[in-house]
């Protein structure tokens, strides 16, 4: 038995020694839990590794047929809001079940015909020609491209990328050390990388020293011509993940 153990047992007693061991273990456990990233809230579900297939393919029922009632009556977008059929064992979906009335006793013997009307972008075959939302002109966008009728509504104007221009950078803020950091946009323009610490530029070093990670530091970032993550919602729109400032070479819009 090590001498440090006999000494400590004699001095503090076994119970006190056990308490100290438990405290250390608790500290270590708390540190590890604090270091965990998001995703552990999902623990309990079977973890999947890269490459593992989760084939859950579902076909939403499409509004391909004319409604049984008045053609001009608004019809809910059943293609999305309707309950989706469960996946089959093979990972592909079975064809969606045909639309059935809830009560066969009330089904009329001769369903009313489709009443033709002008086709509009609503996911319905308004003109009863068997095509949904056909012949609807696209709407030109100011920055180029057009909006098309998709899934019963007009699409957004196209953008050159999804989240950010690949390789571009924006400023973000940390709660320690220099408080000033930057994120680089991924090569596919779909996300930013992690916030990595940088040296504070001279024009904001005083603000960083005095106010640390703060709205003042973000304001200094904006005032000095950087593209800055709006972590303090300085524009008061409730969005803390957007970018403010000189972001022409960062933003997709």
């Amino acid at each position, binding site marked *: 038995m090590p001498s440090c153990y006999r000494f400590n047992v004699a001095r503090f007693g076994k119970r006190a020694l056990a308490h100290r061991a438990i405290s250390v273990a608790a500290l270590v456990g708390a540190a590890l839990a604090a270091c965990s990233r998001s*995703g552990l809230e999902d623990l309990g*579900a079977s973890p999947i590794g890269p490459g593992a297939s989760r084939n859950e393919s579902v076909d939403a029922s499409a509004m391909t047929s004319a409604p049984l009632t008045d053609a001009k009556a608004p019809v809910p977008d059943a293609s999305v809001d309707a309950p989706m059929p469960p996946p089959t064992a093979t990972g592909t979906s079975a064809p969606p079940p045909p639309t059935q009335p809830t009560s066969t006793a009330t089904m009329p013997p001769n369903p009313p015909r489709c009443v033709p009307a002008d086709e509009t972008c609503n996911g319905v075959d308004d003109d009863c020609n068997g095509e949904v939302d056909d012949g609807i002109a696209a709407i030109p966008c100011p920055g180029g491209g057009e909006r098309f009728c998709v899934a019963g509504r007009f699409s957004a104007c196209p953008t050159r990328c999804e989240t950010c221009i690949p390789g571009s950078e924006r400023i973000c803020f940390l709660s320690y050390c220099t408080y000033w950091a930057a994120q680089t*946009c991924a090569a596919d323009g779909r996300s930013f990388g992690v916030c990595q610490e940088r040296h504070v530029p001279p024009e904001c070093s005083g603000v960083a020293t005095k106010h640390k990670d703060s709205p003042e530091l973000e304001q200094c970032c904006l005032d000095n011509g950087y593209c800055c993550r709006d972590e303090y919602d300085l524009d008061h729109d409730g969005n803390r993940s957007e970018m403010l400032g000189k972001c022409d070479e960062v933003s997709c819009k």
Partner: protein
Amino acid sequence: MQIARAATSLAVVLVAHAARAADCAPPEILDMFPPDGATNVPTNAILSAHYSPSSQWVGGEHEVVTLHGPDPGGEDIPVDPLPDCTPPEGMDRFPPGNYCWSGSEGLLKLRPPEDLRAGSAYTVEWPGLRGLTASRGAGRTVTFTVGDGPDVESPKFAGLENVEWDVGRSKDECIDSEADRFLFDLTPGEASDDFGTESLALVVYETRGPNIGPSSPPEQVAFLPFPVKRDPTRIELSLDDGKGPVCFAARAQDLIGNSSTGADKQVCATTKKPPFFYGCAMTAPRFATTTAAPALLLLLSLAALRRHRSPS
């Protein structure tokens, strides 16, 4: 002396970082419409090249589009650049004899001055464009053969038929770490056009997602050549954009810009964000994820031992 060494080391690291960011995501031509070797291009075709998102067109002498034909025996056909693709008043397209850059679409479009000659071959030289930094991508040349007349009908498309999803992780050269993405394999239905499907584009939209509700405008997520033999097309989304219930729809577009129906049909899936554990590193440099936890344990252990020994 030590301060000078530290400063030099820091400068080297910063320069290396800047160089890496500058070299990542170089501009490139992703697709061309019609593709190289196309054999049935309509005489009234508008030609285009699709560039990567980092590409920028400034219209300099190195960013000229060249049209040559009709071959055999053809010559360079004069075409002029426009500042953008906005149609003039009373027109639905930009004027013939011009080319223009649509930055929001990433398309450089060329409209020949007159209809292409049926049965002849033409060559287009698409220029390499500059990226966010000074590096310029490579240009590409495409040669195609014209069909026997103009395209007057819109393409037909049955819509998407199936979606399967997975999660992928790959090293990203810009952020110098691994990027997680949802992968969606979309199977298109039957498509047809009066000039065949080889020059059709498949335009895919996300119609439902974490940021797209049932009444929100669908967002375009892909513009690519229509798959040969209806092979599945892969779409990638970030974990934030593809988590939970997601739906897609698509349309086909021909060389004139006519769009098909079929975009009303959606395919949906419900994804689940994987439980990846990144470790204890605050800024997640690669070495820290493997050494931070053991180092922390060691420090805590030493502190506990020292505390026991000190009151002697």
